[in-house]
Every structure is written in C-alpha cells, then in structure tokens.
C-alpha cells in the first residue's frame, strides 16, 4: 500500500499498529471505572492484532448514503400524503427531498465501490442472502419513481402519473430506511452484528427524524404539522433505541464510549434533543421550525457516522471477537456439564 492508497482508505490506514499491540489487561479501559457494565475481561490474542478485517467502506460515502437513504425514505411518504391531504409545500418538499436523497445516495453508493464502473454488476443477480443486493433492488426502483415524481412536481406535467409514482415510492420508502440496518448487522463486526435487533429501530428513528426535519425546513407553517410529529417521534425513538442498544451491547458497547464514535453519538443526541424540543415549541414560526429541522437532520446524520465509526473500532478490537466467543463456549460447557478445554488453559 502506497501512501497515496493509504489516503484513499482512511479508515483502515488509521489503524495504529502500536495501539493495537498487546495491551496490559490492567490498563485496558482504565479510567472508566463505574461506567463498566461488564467485568474486566482477560483475553488472549495474536500480538493484539485485529482478528477480523474492518470494513473497507469509505467514509463519508457510506454514512452519508445511509443518511440520505433514510431522508429519502420518509420524505417520499410525507410528499405523497402531503399531496393527498392538500399540503402543497410539504408535498413539494417531500417529493424533491426523496428524489435528491435517492440520487445523492446512489452517487455515494457507487462512489463507495472500489470498481465503480461495475456498479451494474449488482443488477445481474438478486440474492436475498446479500443485504447489499436486496438494497440495490430497493434503491433502484425507489430512485426511479422518486425521480419521476420530482420531475412531474417541477414541470407540472403528468400530475396524475406523478401522484401515482409518488405513491409507489412512498410504499417502497420504509424498506429503504430500514434495510441498511441489515446491511451493517449482517457482518462479522461484533458491535453491528450483536445489535441486529435494535439497529433497525435506531435507523428507522433516524430516517423519521431526517425526513421530518427536512419537512420542517421546507414546508410552510400551515403545512408542517405531520413533519413535526414524524420528526419528534423519530428523534425520541432514535434516542431511546440508541441508548438501549448501547446498554444492551455490554462489553461491545464500549466503542460508543470512547474515541470519535463517542463524540459523534453525543453530538447526535444533543442535536436530536434540541431539534425535537425546538420542533415542539417552535413549529409555528418559520425560522425556528427550519432551525429545528436542520438540527434533527444533523442528529440523524451524526448517528449514522457514529454507528459507522463504532463498527470500525469494534472490528479492530480483538477483545470484541475473543471475549464474547469464549463466554459463549464457557456457557455452553456450563450447561452441558462438559469441559473440553485442553489443560493448557492455565498457561495464559
């Protein structure tokens, strides 16, 4: 890997080999004291090196794709229902945001490929076992219908067809907002995989906060009630589910308590809380509604960046692999009453 390539792969290049070399078990996570939810675990490893490979997905491409996908997912619904309930500014905002989010997300998704010219290779198969394949088949029709709807909205042509395609996009939308949780969970990255029950809810909340926030930014005070409701509900769900996820992860949640992921998640929570309060109190004023919407969108995006970073940190930590797997072995042996551990266990 040349230096130029290292710059192209910032997440991987940032692995400081010295930092992942054997850490004294006493110094590990020292200073967190009472925050520890699990007893300090001893583990063995190969010179402290990572066991699994951290994702080579690019930052900010993939977190931004997740954010834009979530934004588009709920915006399409707001646009369709805004049209049906005679809220023209919400309809327009939702339709344009859905198309822009889908288009931007597609660009980031293609750019994330290390061979972008072969993007179409993902359309040669449909594999339910590959969330990326499923996601491609969700994103492609969604982007098509959302773009057609936005074109109709902008030109004023084919309004009936625009309404119909907007409805189709709105039906596909929620799938676009939650499949990305499976995309992350269906990896060997412990912090992502073990959160596979909570992550869809976090991401759905994030999508609602982003789409609702966009509605608050773009819709008039007369039209923005549904956007405010959706955004506040999304922010509350995201905050609660995110907190629950971090606690339930136990040892694996430590990546949310340190480093850049910690900073990002704290900033996300601050933005979401401020945006939700602002949306409740300030919805009736154009400027405060727009500011709240921006805060909610920022909070949603920061969550995606935080979860992404946490996964990179988790993959690079051999303790995240060894300790839970050892514990699983120990529990199984305790239940079956067998001890197949060879006698050299005392060597460590």
């Amino acid at each position, binding site marked *: 890997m040349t230096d130029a390539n290292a710059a192209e792969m910032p997440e991987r290049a940032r692995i400081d080999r010295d930092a992942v070399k054997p850490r004294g078990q006493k110094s590990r996570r020292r200073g967190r004291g009472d925050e520890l939810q699990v007893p300090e675990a001893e583990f063995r490893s190969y010179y402290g090196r990572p066991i699994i490979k951290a994702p080579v997905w690019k930052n900010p491409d993939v977190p931004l794709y997740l954010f834009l996908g979530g934004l588009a997912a709920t915006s399409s619904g707001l646009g369709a229902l805004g049209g049906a309930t005679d809220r023209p500014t919400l309809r327009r905002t939702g339709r344009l945001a859905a198309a822009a989010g889908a288009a931007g997300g597609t660009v980031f998704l293609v750019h994330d490929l290390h061979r972008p010219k072969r993007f179409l290779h993902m359309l040669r198969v449909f594999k339910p*076992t590959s969330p990326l394949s499923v996601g491609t088949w969700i994103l492609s029709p969604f982007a098509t219908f959302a773009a057609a709807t936005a074109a109709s909205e902008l030109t004023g042509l084919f309004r009936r067809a625009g309404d119909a395609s907007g409805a189709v996009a709105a039906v596909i939308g929620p799938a676009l907002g939650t499949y990305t949780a499976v995309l992350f969970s269906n990896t060997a990255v412990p912090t992502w995989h073990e959160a596979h029950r909570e992550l869809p809810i976090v991401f759905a909340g994030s999508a609602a906060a982003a789409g609702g926030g966009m509605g608050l930014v773009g819709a008039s005070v007369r039209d923005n009630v549904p*956007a405010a409701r959706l955004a506040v509900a999304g922010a509350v769900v995201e905050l609660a589910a995110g907190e629950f996820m971090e606690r339930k992860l136990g040892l694996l949640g430590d990546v949310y308590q340190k480093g850049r992921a910690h900073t990002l998640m704290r900033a996300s929570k601050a933005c979401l809380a401020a945006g939700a309060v602002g949306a409740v109190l300030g919805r009736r004023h154009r400027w405060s509604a727009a500011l709240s919407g921006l805060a909610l969108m920022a909070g949603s995006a920061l969550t995606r960046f935080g979860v992404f970073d946490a996964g990179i940190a988790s993959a690079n930590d051999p303790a995240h692999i060894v300790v839970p797997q050892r514990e699983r072995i120990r529990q199984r042996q305790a239940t079956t009453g067998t001890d197949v551990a060879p006698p050299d266990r005392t060597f460590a």
Partner: protein
Amino acid sequence: MWDAFSGAASSLSGPLPDPTTDAGWSGDHPKRVGFFTDTSVCIGCKACEVACKEWNLVPDDGTDASDLYRLTGMSYDNTGDLGASSWRHVAFIEDVRPHGSATAAHGGPPSGVPVDSLATGFLPSGLPAVTDGAPSTPTLRAPRDAATAPAPGETVDLLALLPDTGAHGQQTPDDERDVRWLMSSDVCKHCTHAGCLDVCPTGALFRTEYGTVVVQDDICNGCGYCVPSCPYGVIDVREDDGGAHKCTLCYDRLGAGMEPACAKACPTNSIQFGDLDELQAAADARLAELHGRGVTEARLYGRDPDDGVGGDGAFFLLLDEPEVYGMPPEPIVTTRDLPEMWRNAALTAVGLGAAVVAAFWGGRK
C-alpha cells in the same frame, strides 16, 4: 433461494454434508477438497507463502509501507495477517516466561527435551520448544556455556547464545526462563457456510465444483461487503485494483489434477491437501496419536461440521487456543441470523410507514 427464509432449510447455517450440491452443482461433481494444516510439524519456513505468491502471481502485500523493511517488530512474522495479497500467512508465536509459570504446553518442566529425542523427531511435548534444564530434572541440566556441545540426553540452551537485551520485557536471567514457539500457516477456511459468498451482491464469489470458495475477478466490483463478513478476517480488497482477493485453493491447479502450490511446497507436510473426508480421518488419527503421546494441548480447529460455519474446508491441528494464533475461538457465520434480521427490518419498515401515516392523523389543526 427463498426457502432459506422458511427456517427449515439449513443452507445458511448448521451441518451441511455437501455444500457443492447445495450451491447448485449437479450430483456428479468431484468430492469436496480441502487443507489439513497440522501445526505441530510446521517449522515456520514460509515456503507456503512464497509458493502461493509465485504460482498465483500475488503482488507485494505492502504491509506497513512506512517501514522500509516491513518488519512488524513483534516476532519472526512480518506478513502480519491474511489479506488481499497474502493468501497464506505463517503465524509465529514466541512466548518467553519465567520458570514456574509454564505448564507442559510450554515445553517447561518436567519435559526437558533430550538431544537424542530431537534427532528422532520425537518431541514429547509436541512442540519445537527449547528449554534449559528444570530444577525437577537436574540430570538434564544444560551446560551454561551453550557453545559446548551437549552430551546426549542433555538439553540445548539456545537462549544462552543470545544476549539478554530485555527485548521481551523480561529481567529474568537466561537460565530461569522458558521459551515456546508456535508456528501455523493460516489460510482461507473455505467454510461450509461462507459469509463472504452469501453477502456478495454481484455473484463474483462462488462455490466451485470442489466445494471451495473462489472470487471471479472479472465480476467483482469492489463493494467490499465480503471483507467484514468473513468471521476469520481472510478476504480483503486490494487497493491498486480495487477487487477482493483471497485463496482460491489453487482452483486452476485442481482442474489439472495438481495439488495447491502451498501444499506442494510444504517441506514437513504440515499442509496436507486432499479430499476433505480423508483429511478429516487423517486429522482424527493424528490427534489421537498426539494425545497418546501426552500432547494433551493438541486440538482440531474447524474440523467440527456442527460448528458456527458448518465446518471448514481448510482446518487445523493447533497446540493452543485459536485466538493465540489470531483466529476466532468460535466463529459463527453472520448469515445464520439473517432471516431474523430481515424479519426485524421488515417489521420496522411497516412501523415506519405506519408512523408516517399516523403523522397525518386528525387533519389540519
């Protein structure tokens, strides 16, 4: 493929006697092949790494470009790990411990290695360990001056030849510490349930007629999904061409009736290639033999078809816990939980859609 989500099919996890047929090959395909890597006879020569690179034209792996000589500084292992351009990786573990902290697995007391047994290749501990004499075996005490040839029955104190620079953080005098070396040639496991193959969105990764898992480089679009999906950290994306690469188990050589390059080059037969069922039988016999000799620390890794990946096509005989060699102690293929994940995501999507509808409830205020 949808039946994988009914919960009845076992193609995402669990024992699977014939992954080749499960992948869609007709019943008359060749038998499943694999590697049995017996690390108890590995000498760490890295001939497998070199042979693999030469045969498969694998480029420079470029590890740690900041270091001109690419030294990891941790042991004689300067490859570091498996990757896009390292399809075999010889792990090298050196433990230096004070006396008394060691067990038999350490090559410590009471099994000092007599010189004549070294000549026969019979290692009571099964380890290429060097040790000085132990207090419990005073008759085997090594000469302090290791340059003096030891008499038969005595042990060789190779450490006495080395200056004690404290490189291992040990302040212990030479004659009060033990050294253990473990060597193991790691490789792609060619899992029965291969996470990399399951998640590949282009179909570039496929199951061959030999039951192995291979990347088609002309299909791979470098999405990188296989990389974090491998529970062993084997496959990686090569930066210069953007494609994912890993061991092919020398797919091209198999077609010509040849064994893979690494197995061919291995001078101690630590890497054994063959039909998987025969290798499993050979491994079971080898394990029983070692246990019979008192090498109780020997254990097979990846042999069990009931494990989290349905058993490995390339499995190992190890002399310590897998994590010591840099391998996960009990990997589970990530797609085992995929049906549940899809259910959760679908339910959440329905909830999200309902939330959007509910936000419009009650008309305009």
